[in-house]
């Protein structure tokens, strides 16, 4: 942490009171949080082990206000941390002590729904599920479905390039986003894309998606809507070994089937989810697959038969197809509340590595080994179709030093994922959590090529400045390549 926090402390001592004066000239009282108890609500996100009380929190209502706030942060060169619902599991929205946190959750209006274009244009603070809810009756939905969809915002989804269980078929945020309105660090308002495919010129949307609040503050988004399938039905397949479950998934895909979702849970995950949701999961299996098939009743029947036929080669010890809507809902509720269910048992660190499917059983065995060596229990949830693995490492947050230990354990797991041919994050993002692990996946030149882009949008390095890039490399980069702001002698 050294260099950067020192740098930040230095700036902090210099946060002038006039920042508050400027902000209060711009915003009404109820848009500014300054008191300690109010600020405490913003000290962390879903990576609760790290807490930092910010300098001030502001809640804009309009793009113009966002631009003016950015201009203020730019004028004083103090960090600006964008925030949606604060559900980031990577600490993407964790403040700095000298930061203005700009929380977009009040910008929650749906601006336009155009069913001819099959697009929705919404303000940044609209929740993921609210988009689908708004077009549900017309037979459409917004496809990426993070389990946090009830609360997470579209801007948070864009910042993290979020995915969900049904992304196997429909893609993640980057595949479903057509346009954004974004405010730069200097307070300039930019539009990218629009209600049409494939923007002109360079594909800026591709780098804005997943930029974790480091390139600009998204204030509006235009997303693709898709027609809802006629129906969908999940089936459960239980196996005695991880191997058999993994091989079954590979065989389904190799046979040319791409179900809308293939989810995998190991025994500890099954048990805690079942306790929580009463989904009827089998408790005597080592691995459980939830596979969802879409279409008309008849198409679903055919699809399920085909999958069962393939699965039978791997001797599933449990097979059950949801017979009713309620049963289907319970199966998904169990899966989607997995994080919550485990959270009731213990504090956990949720990892988000991706691995090639063929390495599944090797990686799972290794994960168990690694966690054992740290004396942590672990439950594994896995978007099996696309290789995105969520080991939830359980630890005792009240014991001093445990968080550092669990972080180390997690880092070993992510290193394992990279060595297996995968990556350190499939959908949760880097944030502060995996910042120092970026070196597992990228060398310095790779990172320089990314950081140069940040400089274009954020020349003073004010936007969410301590996220994504390893601190020392970022510091070195800035020293070498950043144009020092005029009159700045820090």
């Amino acid at each position, binding site marked *: 942490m050294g260099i950067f926090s020192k740098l930040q402390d230095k700036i902090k001592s210099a946060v002038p009171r006039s920042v508050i004066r400027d902000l209060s000239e711009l915003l009404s009282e109820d848009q500014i949080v300054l008191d300690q108890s109010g600020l405490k609500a913003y000290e962390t996100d879903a990576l609760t082990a790290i807490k930092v009380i910010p300098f001030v929190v502001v809640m804009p209502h309009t793009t113009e206000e966002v631009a003016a706030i950015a201009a203020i942060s730019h004028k004083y060169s103090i960090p600006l941390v964008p925030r949606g619902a604060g559900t980031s599991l990577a600490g993407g929205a964790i403040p700095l002590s000298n930061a203005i946190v700009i929380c977009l959750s009040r910008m929650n209006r749906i601006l336009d729904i155009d069913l001819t274009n099959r697009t929705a244009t919404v303000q940044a603070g609209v929740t993921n599920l609210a988009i689908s809810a708004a077009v549900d009756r017309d037979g459409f939905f917004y496809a990426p479905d993070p389990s946090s969809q009830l609360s997470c915002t579209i801007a948070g989804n864009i910042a993290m390039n979020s995915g969900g269980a049904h992304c196997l078929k429909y893609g*993640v945020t980057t595949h479903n986003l057509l346009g954004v309105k974004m405010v730069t660090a200097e307070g300039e308002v930019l539009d990218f894309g*629009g209600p049409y*495919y494939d923007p002109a010129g360079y594909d800026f949307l591709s780098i804005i998606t997943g930029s974790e609040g480091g390139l600009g503050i998204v204030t509006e988004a235009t997303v693709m809507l898709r*027609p809802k399938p006629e129906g969908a039905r999940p089936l459960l397949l239980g196996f005695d070994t991880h191997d058999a479950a993994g091989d079954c998934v590979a065989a389904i895909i190799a046979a040319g089937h791409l179900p809308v979702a293939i989810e995998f849970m190991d025994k500890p995950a099954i048990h805690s989810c079942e306790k929580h949701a009463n989904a009827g999961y089998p408790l005597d299996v080592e691995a459980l697959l939830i596979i969802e098939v879409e279409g008309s009743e008849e198409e679903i029947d055919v699809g399920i038969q085909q999958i069962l036929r393939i699965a039978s080669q791997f001797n599933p010890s449990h097979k059950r197809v949801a017979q009713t809507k309620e049963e289907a809902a319970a199966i998904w509720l169990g899966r989607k509340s997995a994080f919550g269910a485990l959270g009731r048992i213990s504090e956990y660190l949720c990892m988000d590595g991706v691995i090639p499917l063929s390495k599944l059983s090797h990686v799972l065995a290794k994960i168990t080994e690694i966690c054992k060596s740290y004396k942590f229990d672990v439950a594994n949830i896995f978007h099996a179709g696309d*290789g995105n693995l969520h080991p939830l490492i359980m630890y005792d947050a009240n014991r001093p030093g445990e968080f550092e230990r669990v972080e180390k354990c997690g880092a070993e797991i992510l290193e394992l994922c990279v060595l297996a041919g995968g990556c350190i994050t499939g959908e949760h993002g880097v944030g502060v959590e995996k910042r120092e692990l970026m070196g597992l996946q990228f060398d310095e030149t790779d990172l320089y090529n990314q950081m140069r882009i940040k400089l274009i949008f954020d020349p003073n390095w004010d936007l969410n400045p301590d996220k994504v890039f390893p601190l020392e490399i970022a510091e070195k980069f800035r020293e070498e390549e950043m144009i020092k702001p005029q009159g700045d002698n820090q």
Partner: protein
Amino acid sequence: MQDMLTPLVDRDLKDMIQDARDKGSALEILGHGTKRSIGHYNEKNVPLSMRRFSEITFYEPSELVISARAGTPIVEIEREIKGYNQHLPFEYLDFSSLFDTEPGYGTVASLFATNFSGSRRLLKGSARDHLLGIKAINGRGENFSSGGRVMKNVAGLDLAKLMANSWGTLAVMTEVTIKLLPKPPTECTLFMYGLEEDIALEALRSAVSTPFEVSGAVHLCRDHAHPCLEGVTYVRDKAVTAIRLENTAKSIAYRSEKIKDLLSAFGDIYYIDEPESKLFWQNMRQLQFLSGRDDAVWRISTSPQRAYQSARQIKKLVDSQVSYDWGGGLLWISTRGVADMGSSDIRRIIAQAGGHASLIHAGSEASQIVSPFHPLDPTHMKLTKALKQMFDPDSVLNPGRMYNGI
């Protein structure tokens, strides 16, 4: 014409880039050169072909992923994945008939550098959407990589997708990793003949709003339809509206009935079986409907909402023929006998509607007078220049191909 540089390994390419930087010259980055006539041509740039970077380096059918060096022929990749019943789902465009060049050429990296996706883009996404990872060398001569061989990867900025539509002006891709999909078991197409444009678009809109996963939704005007219908139906002299379904035989039988019911009010509907359906969409992908004519050709991405009105306005001002793909979101316009190929009118109208117009083929007129790519507004131009500057500060990679200096 200058001698073509043909690097074999990274080292060669880096040396060539360094050499250009030292001399203050620039390189024209090419694969097989099949899209060489799109965009500005700058005769001062020394041609460099990546065609010897040719090898499939990794293929894992059960994970739907393939990696290949940049210059690997697309046909080679298709041959390899066909054996596993997989395909490149974005239905890339083949310009050979339009440019009257030999078919079957094209290198894999160019699919992404140019990001021309065909009719199935509507359902399955663009070339860019299927680019999982890259290795590349930028104009500073630096090797960098982004993404990987797994389906999901959100670590850091997605420089792989940034290469889409960058036309070799930011970096030279040396290897790409692509997401594949299983080939649908079979397909069929529903045809309607002679519909008025606005009615046709309404029919397409209805079809693509159903849950039946329409994977192609086009309306070809009478002039354009003719060459695409060759061998497909005996009807040749009418506009055609086509809706494709791809899935199992049972499923498309069911879905096509549903869509027929839905669209019955629009007119008679003809069921086109797999072989003819395949031929029709192959003709589409090969742009047969635009070939063999002396017209200028525009490709315009816009919102389906505004497409019809825009096309109407354009037709009023410019002697032109209009067809639609992507359920109305893509216009193909051929213009004839206009000094600027219709550029100023077309671009003004499309700018108002939202979207952008690229000049794909300049016909007999000189393309130098018209910017092939849609001009950017000053703010975007500023960012575009800044990005170019970061990746290629000495402007050695394809300068001027896209825009002045870019």
